């Protein structure tokens, strides 16, 4: 009975320490059960002209964002924070990164490849996605990001700049504003928590 009590207390302590990240994706009721939205099927090319799709990221955690190469305002800082995440989790095979270009007209695959090379990153860990503009803009929604083409703006696009953490089953688990380095510090802690699930 004493041993039983110790085991109970022991397992209780452990339970408190392993908090899980919430699932932030929208949910709907299907036949009385809560079903969370997942990242929908997608198929894009990365900077090495390799096909990347849901299977590329299945079972892993990844951080996604939406940017474009000629963006002078929020993108450099966003990508600098993505680079920090990359460097912190460089040796962790279960954490990938995915940057979608919202300007496929100008951001060609060779230019994306050069950008990735300039960052000095492993292309199999940090993918830069090139694809159909409509498909990418629709995906942005599922990644809690807004992307709008707006020719009245100097750079032609308006986008929210969120870094979004996706879990192993395609659910949004956390996000942070890419220009807020403190929020990204917190996101890195969230990544650690999420990696415990994998």
């Amino acid at each position, binding site marked *: 009975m004493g041993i039983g009590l110790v085991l109970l207390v022991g397992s209780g302590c452990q339970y408190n320490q392993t908090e899980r990240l919430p699932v932030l994706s929208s949910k709907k009721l299907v036949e009385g059960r809560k079903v969370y939205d997942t990242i929908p099927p997608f198929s894009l090319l990365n900077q090495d002209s390799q096909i990347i799709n849901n299977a590329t990221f299945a079972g892993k955690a990844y951080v996604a964002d939406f940017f474009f190469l000629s963006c*002078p305002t*929020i993108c*450099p*800082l966003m*990508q600098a924070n993505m*680079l920090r995440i990359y460097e912190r989790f460089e040796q962790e095979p279960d954490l990938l990164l995915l940057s979608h270009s919202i300007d496929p007209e100008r951001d060609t695959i060779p230019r994306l490849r050069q*950008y990735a090379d*300039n*960052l*000095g990153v492993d292309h199999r860990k940090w993918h830069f996605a090139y694809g159909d503009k409509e498909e990418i803009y629709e995906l942005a929604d599922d990644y809690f990001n807004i992307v709008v083409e707006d020719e009245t703006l100097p750079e032609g696009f308006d986008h929210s700049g969120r870094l979004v953490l996706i879990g192993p089953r395609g659910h949004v688990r956390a996000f942070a504003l890419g220009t807020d380095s403190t929020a990204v510090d917190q996101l890195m802690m969230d990544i650690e928590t999420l990696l415990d699930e994998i």
Partner: protein
Amino acid sequence: MVIVICFVVACSSSNPYKQGKILYENFCASCHMDDGSGLAANIPPLAGADYLKEAQELLPCIIRYGQQGPIVVNGVTYNNAMPGVPQLTDFEIANVINYINHAWGNDYGYMQIDEVQDILEECQ
């Protein structure tokens, strides 16, 4: 005693190029970052940058009109176009240059306003 310490600390941390700092943060930091570190091999650093130190006379035109083509900074080649900042006045450009010349440990000298204006007249 406490007041004296505060005064000394305040003096040593004051930046004489406050206007330049504000301009830098509003017009330059989005790419070159608040700490002047740039972005890997995509955007060159300004902190401790040999290019900055050696190309002082190019700075006014670069800031106003931007720059294209490959340059080498601290041994790394950069080849992305930098957009100019046409809305800065001659005085503001001088302020920014003097700020970056003295920020982050840089010690690259002080550029007079008339020097900046002379250079700006000759930009290609």
